[in-house]
């Protein structure tokens, strides 16, 4: 059973087509990262999935219901984290807990206060006066105490220092370990995602590529070589990405070393000391999507 299903999604905004025919699904119990450069419609897609934007056409099912018209019961099974860790700033921490406790049948105040307790904040402190990191914990507390089946986290790392990011990840890992939980997450800090996600959706120019993290990290490769001349390699069947910094060139490809070597020769490129090097997810992202 899929937690999220997207069929033939078409959306345009101000005359610009963002997606022409988008199709993907996220099975229940998986952790999926949605990646894409700025302006590729990542936020729009998250908004559509969260139900705050009606697509021009196509179908988006979240836990089996149209994402734009979710029933209250299904909404109670979904935890949303909005960009910037949105919370009701006019409430204090205890008022936030009191408010949400009345909204969710399965609300677990212990989870909420456990997370808040880590920060040692007084419960009568206004959310508006909290730092971004502290607020993120309150929001996370709210989401976790709901005990949702599906989490959609829009850029959870925004504004968080490394400590709070780690804290956030710890909670997400614990949550995922409960089993049967689905998480869709976007973040600009790819090294965090590398530790968290199982599958990834790359969003680029209105199209997508969905791939398992392990598959991606094992099938996508980073090659380096030396070349004194200034080179410009365009994308083709072999070259997925290319960058040159000083005399060192970096090439990304799904092909093995031999194929890349033959391809470079056929292009007349003298690739000195061509070798495959270790690749991080961030490298892979740049290699696949480009820098801008």
């Amino acid at each position, binding site marked *: 059973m899929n937690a999220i299903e997207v069929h033939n999604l078409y959306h345009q905004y101000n005359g610009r087509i963002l997606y022409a025919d988008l199709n993907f699904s996220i099975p229940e119990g998986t952790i999926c990262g949605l990646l894409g450069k700025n302006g590729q419609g990542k936020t729009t897609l998250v908004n559509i999935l969260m139900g*705050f934007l009606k697509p021009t056409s196509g179908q988006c099912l979240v836990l089996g219901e149209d994402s734009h018209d979710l029933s*209250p019961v299904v909404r109670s099974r*979904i935890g949303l984290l909005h960009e910037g860790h949105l919370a009701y700033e006019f409430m204090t921490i205890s008022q936030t807990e009191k408010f949400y406790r009345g909204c969710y049948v399965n609300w677990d105040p212990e989870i909420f206060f456990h997370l808040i307790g880590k920060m040692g904040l007084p419960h009568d402190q206004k959310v508006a006066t909290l730092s971004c990191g502290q607020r993120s914990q309150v929001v996370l507390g709210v989401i976790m105490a709901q005990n949702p089946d599906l989490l959609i986290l829009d850029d959870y790392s925004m504004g968080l220092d490394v400590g709070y990011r780690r804290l956030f990840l710890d909670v997400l890992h614990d949550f995922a370990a409960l089993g049967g939980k689905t998480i869709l997450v976007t973040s600009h800090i790819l090294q965090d995602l590398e530790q968290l996600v199982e599958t990834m959706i790359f969003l680029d120019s209105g199209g997508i590529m969905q791939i398992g993290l392990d598959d991606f990290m094992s099938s996508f490769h980073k090659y380096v070589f030396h070349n004194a001349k200034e080179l410009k390699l365009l994308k083709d069947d072999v070259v997925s990405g290319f960058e040159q910094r000083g005399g060192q060139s970096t090439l990304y490809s799904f092909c093995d070393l031999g194929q890349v070597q033959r391809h470079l020769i056929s292009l007349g490129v003298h690739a000195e000391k061509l070798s495959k090097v270790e690749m991080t997810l961030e490298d892979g992202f740049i290699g696949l999507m480009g820098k801008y």
Partner: protein
Amino acid sequence: MLYSLLFKEWLKLKRYFAAVLLLNCGICLEIFFNIRQQMYAEHAEMVWYQAIHIHSLLYQDIRYVPLFTGLVLATAQFVPEMMGRRFRLSLHLPVSRSLMLFFSLLSGVMLYLIICGSTSLCIYLTLQKYFPIEVAQSSLSTMVSWVLAGLIAYFGCASVLLEQSWPRRVFLLLVFVTLVKMLYAGFGYGWLAPALPALVLLAPLAMFSVFDSARRFQDKGV
């Protein structure tokens, strides 16, 4: 759930509610002392003559206070929801979205009516102390249109704040300004009274139009 919704609205409203309640009380006191002073300074029968036959409204100072009250309450409720588009949090609550918005509006309207009801009662009692009962009664039918104007302004303000497209926001603003202006038409006491049964219908229409803005918020939430 409903308790939680009302609790949230109360948290947003309580300070502003207290402030506008205080303002209303202040104006009521001012009217009371003005009338008292006038009754001492002038011949009472001449003050009566002005109130009854010249159609002077001795409670004129309260005229735009309900309008201001409605605008303040709507702003207090919906500006925090619009900052960072926090209304998305409310829309995601596990409750019917219409019901959520209805209770939001209901809490604002209740507080508005509490303020306006108390104010009207104060004016009524003041007039009853110094004038025949007919004069006090006529103040109620006169103030109803002002209270209605404040209510329409409340819904209008909510509608405009929830609206996402600027051209439509301007259009709605003009519509509601016109409707409010309509409710301030005329002069003297009871001028609008014959039209009130029809004008009262504007209130439910205005309330439902907030739902339309909220729907557009959800449809176009980029």
